């Protein structure tokens, strides 16, 4: 171990006027890490029924300058996206994350929409992704990296479109963590953190020039959410 490491740990213990932690204190800290107890979660979303959480998610996302389109069936998603791009006069050209859930959608029916599957490049004007969960409390998307989720796809393109199922909406960040912990990722089917977990609330912004908020700093200028009301929560 490096001498700096030992000196820093020694300095911490000296300042706290103790040696290494007593075994019972170590046990208490270890338990905290293993059981990760919840702290107070605001009532705002927690007390709502699932339908109410979906409505709150939409309201909060819109308050953070995202736009939301609602559809009944997954098969409506490509047409909805094409209509959104046409309405804003944006290029009908998108890159979609290599995600089986997106592969299953009828993209070819949109004859004017040029789609590519893979990792986003700087030249891609529109990126389409799914998400892992959606947090009602603040209208926040939760995405993570993996084979189906290149992180850059939700940062490089000017327009980020996220496809969200109503059943993915949870009340709070803590619910998102618990869902992630329950989704085993490594070979032994144990929980492993993905390299990157992104919480995304609205499009990129800055207020660095005279405190005036401008959307589209370095990340997407627009965040559009296509919400599939799949009824799983009703």
């Amino acid at each position, binding site marked *: 171990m490096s001498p*700096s490491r030992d000196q*820093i740990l020694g300095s911490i213990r000296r300042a706290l006027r103790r040696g290494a932690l007593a075994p019972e204190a170590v046990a208490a800290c270890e338990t905290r890490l293993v059981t990760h107890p919840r702290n107070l979660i605001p009532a*705002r979303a927690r007390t709502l029924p699932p339908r109410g959480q979906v409505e709150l998610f939409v309201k909060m996302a819109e308050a953070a300058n995202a736009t939301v389109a609602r559809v009944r069936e997954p098969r409506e998603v490509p047409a909805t996206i094409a209509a959104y791009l046409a309405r804003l006069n944006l290029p009908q050209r998108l890159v979609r994350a290599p995600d089986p859930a997106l592969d299953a959608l009828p993209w070819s029916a949109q004859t004017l929409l040029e789609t590519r599957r893979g*990792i986003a490049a700087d030249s891609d004007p529109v990126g389409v992704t799914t998400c892992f969960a959606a947090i009602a409390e603040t209208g926040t998307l939760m995405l993570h990296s993996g084979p189906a989720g290149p992180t850059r796809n939700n940062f490089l393109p000017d327009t980020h479109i996220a496809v969200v199922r109503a059943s993915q909406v949870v009340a*709070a960040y*803590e619910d998102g963590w618990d869902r992630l912990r329950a989704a085993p990722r490594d070979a032994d089917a144990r929980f492993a*953190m993905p390299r*990157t977990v992104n919480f995304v609330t609205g499009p990129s912004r800055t207020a660095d020039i005279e405190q005036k908020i401008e959307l589209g700093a*370095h*990340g997407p200028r627009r965040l559009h959410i296509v919400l599939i009301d799949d009824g799983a929560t009703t």
Partner: protein
Amino acid sequence: MKATSRAFKDNARRALGDPQLQKALLNLRTGFAERRAHAVSQLPEWEKLRDEAVAIKRHTLANLDFYLEAFEQKVTAQGGQVHWCRDAAEANAAVLAICRRLDAQTVTKGKSMVGEEMGLNDHLEANGVTPVETDLGEYIIQIRHEPPSHIIAPAVHLTKEQIGESFRATHRALDPARRLEDARQMCDEARAILRPRFLAADVGITGANFLVAETGSSIIVTNEGNGDLTQTLPKAHIVLASLEKVVPTLEDASTILRVLARSATGQEFSAYTTVSTGPRRPDDADGPGEYHVVLLDNGRSALLGGEFEDMLRCIRCAACLNHCPVYQAIGGQSYGWVYPGPMGAVLTPSLIGVEAAGNLPNASTFCGRCEQVCPMKIPLPRMMRHWREREFERHLPPRTYRLGLAAWAFFVERPALYRRAADWGARILGYVGRARGRFRALPLAAGWTRTRDLPAPEGRSFMSLWAERVAARKRA
């Protein structure tokens, strides 16, 4: 970063006379404070969340050695590396060694106050590595070769006209006749200039708002998305973090996140909260191949267990700056080092010594707003008072100041004498100043009257009027 905190009084005087700065600082009062107040009003659990956030940090600091070791173990298990650094020199050397090994020409940087504390940009440049700041505010001050003036809005001291001039002077390849008048145009220009830099960088450096012991993760909170492009695209991601950033679990981080954005910008949640754990996995579609955490002490461990330990709870939201009448008047650069405002007035003497920064804890009216709005309930005024006491004990203030204080103490310790002297003083000043009602100059009070008039007392001291009122009420 070189400290000019010794020259605080001159810095402040210059700042007060700088019309551009004064214009820029007006934006603070209407922006941050109003938005924070609104966000807080939307969350009935606000006070309870603050208490829980404080409890989390207290528990962590009491067991800091355990949580840092647990954090390191998790980072290592996932293929990352923690570099323990006692001071800025060690931290700079650790970053440079990684850059050299990867043969890095340019590094992109997300905003990091620890990076400012280390003076990392100068160190990299001196060693042939080009650092590119990507946060818009940091980029602006980098091209102007200035230190930041605010911990979350580094260019808040500048007007858009000044920024436009700097863009024209720096972006020479662009059409000199282009329009560059409003924030939108400047934002788009910076985006276009920096995008290829993101794509070309060999190493990406970010700060950290939290380190999570449970998972070995670092968390950054941003709005621009620059921190994410910075850490996702290059070969390696280096995280600069001071050791008090660690919290036990993702749940604990979530609780503090609820008070962070609301206190900082008044947002419900920042646009991007990003949790990074180790390098990219073998089957990941993208991400950095290496993950390093440069863990900096730089004097913080010595603050544990003492009267400044509470300062280690600070989450760098800047609410204390935004609500400070002194900061609002003079801006951040006057403080002369990395951390300005009330949190800087406490932290700077702790990190660079009270000899160099003794002026800062004196730059307070003790109005108490900073402590009121601090999400982590740090008793900032009390700690500034501690620093003043230490400064006095070490005979650091000038002789005239000490003599004046001794004279004042002589009277204050003798209440009857003090009251009589104050009453006579008020009567005499009231008589002399009765025509104008104020003084433009007064012996021994030049420090006050140089920049403003002193109102003339209206004849009696408060204490004598009060005594009279109490006596009258007793008679009634």
